């Protein structure tokens, strides 16, 4: 069962990466909004995922996105950072009832509000690191901040919608 679960996760990850590089990256909505939804795979990993799996996985996925985008190691750096910070964020967002009987950060078990807040935080950190590396010459902090905030909001919204659709399909099955 565990193995099937991981295979499904892996297939999901491939689709997520393809969606990111072939659909979202080609949309080029605006210079203010460039959503990145692929960190969703990190958000959805089980709480007890060991770090020796999580960190190299985050690095590998980040480098894959970097290859498509010609961003060298920027996505990898941002991904590894959020993978490392995730356990602390999970602890910081502990619900009043604790994480009893909850093994995955899912909408169905923890609610939309918890999931949206957790996603927002992770994505905000990811986008901040990524855009700081992109715009290394900080001559316009206002523009950079606006770009980070707007992109974070759109990415978070997309991820919550995806998670919602996925959770619903699972419940119907």
């Amino acid at each position, binding site marked *: 069962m565990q193995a099937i679960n991981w295979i499904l996760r892996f297939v999901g990850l491939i689709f997520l990466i393809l969606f990111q*590089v072939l659909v979202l990256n080609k949309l*080029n909505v605006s*210079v203010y909004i460039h959503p990145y939804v692929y960190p969703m795979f990190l958000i959805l990993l089980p709480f007890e995922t060991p770090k020796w799996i999580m960190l190299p996985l985050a690095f590998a996925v980040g480098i894959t996105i970097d*290859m498509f985008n010609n961003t060298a190691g920027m996505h990898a750096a941002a991904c590894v950072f959020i993978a490392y910070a995730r356990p602390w964020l999970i602890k910081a967002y502990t619900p009043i009832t604790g994480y009893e009987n909850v093994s995955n950060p899912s909408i169905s078990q923890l609610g939309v509000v918890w999931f949206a807040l957790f996603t927002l935080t992770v994505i905000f950190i990811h986008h901040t690191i990524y855009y700081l590396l992109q715009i290394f*010459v900080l001559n316009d902090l206002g*523009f950079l901040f606006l770009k980070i905030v707007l992109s974070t909001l759109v990415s978070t919204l997309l991820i919550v919608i995806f998670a919602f659709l996925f959770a619903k399909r699972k419940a119907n099955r």
Partner: protein
Amino acid sequence: MRSFFLFIIRHYAVFLFLLLEFISLYFVFTYNSFHNTLFINSANSATGNVLNTYGNFQDYFALREVNDSLMKENALLRQQLFLDDLPDTSASVNRDTSGKPLFTYIPAEVIGNSFTEPNNYITLNKGSLDGIEINRGVITSSGIVGKVVKVSPNYSVVMSVLHSQFGAPVIIKGNNVLGRVAWEGKSPTHINVIEVSEPGKLEKGDTIETAATSKIFPPGIMVGTIEEFGKKPGSNYYTLDVKLATSFSSLKFVYVVVDPMWTEKETLENSVIDAGN
């Protein structure tokens, strides 16, 4: 020694984290300095193939637009062909003394393109096997696109004009005043021309084209038209706000410049720089 290893094993996550971050940042800061040493770019065979396959599939949806642009280009070329019958003194600029063209072009298809990032790149479906080399200009029928920065056998990566590190010398058509293009990162349809000293009489709508001193572009390639101009406070130079002639949102087919004299020019210029040191 034993306790040292135990320490590392107990805190392996921190070391793994630092190691991976170090590798990532190393890639980031060496990307532009090492040309073909790294595999982390969209010209490698894996990413290239994914982008190319998807591009082939997408082609069917863009057939009408591509047709339109090719028709327009055809019309333009026909017009030029007609003009060639007349004696034109400027036409000799791009030909050598025996009448051979100084520049030739390799057509290529865009399979990856971004224009809303702070630094944008374009992936082409032609590579070193087709004769594409690093540091060559890329243009369309309407204007400049960028320069080749990575090449693999079948694919190449182009640094777009919409990139914080892109720069090329340009002139204001008519009075030949020099400037340099630079992108501020805010609009994919506009670019700045900076370091323009004493441009004389300027008007909105004046044409900006590539200068003869450009190492990557042939002279006289369209860049765009002036929309605003002025001096920044405290600066001796004028800055021009130029509307790009190239539409980056509908980029499909481009031409890579082939300059047979490139290596000769480059080695000559480098030898002068070396001699100066």
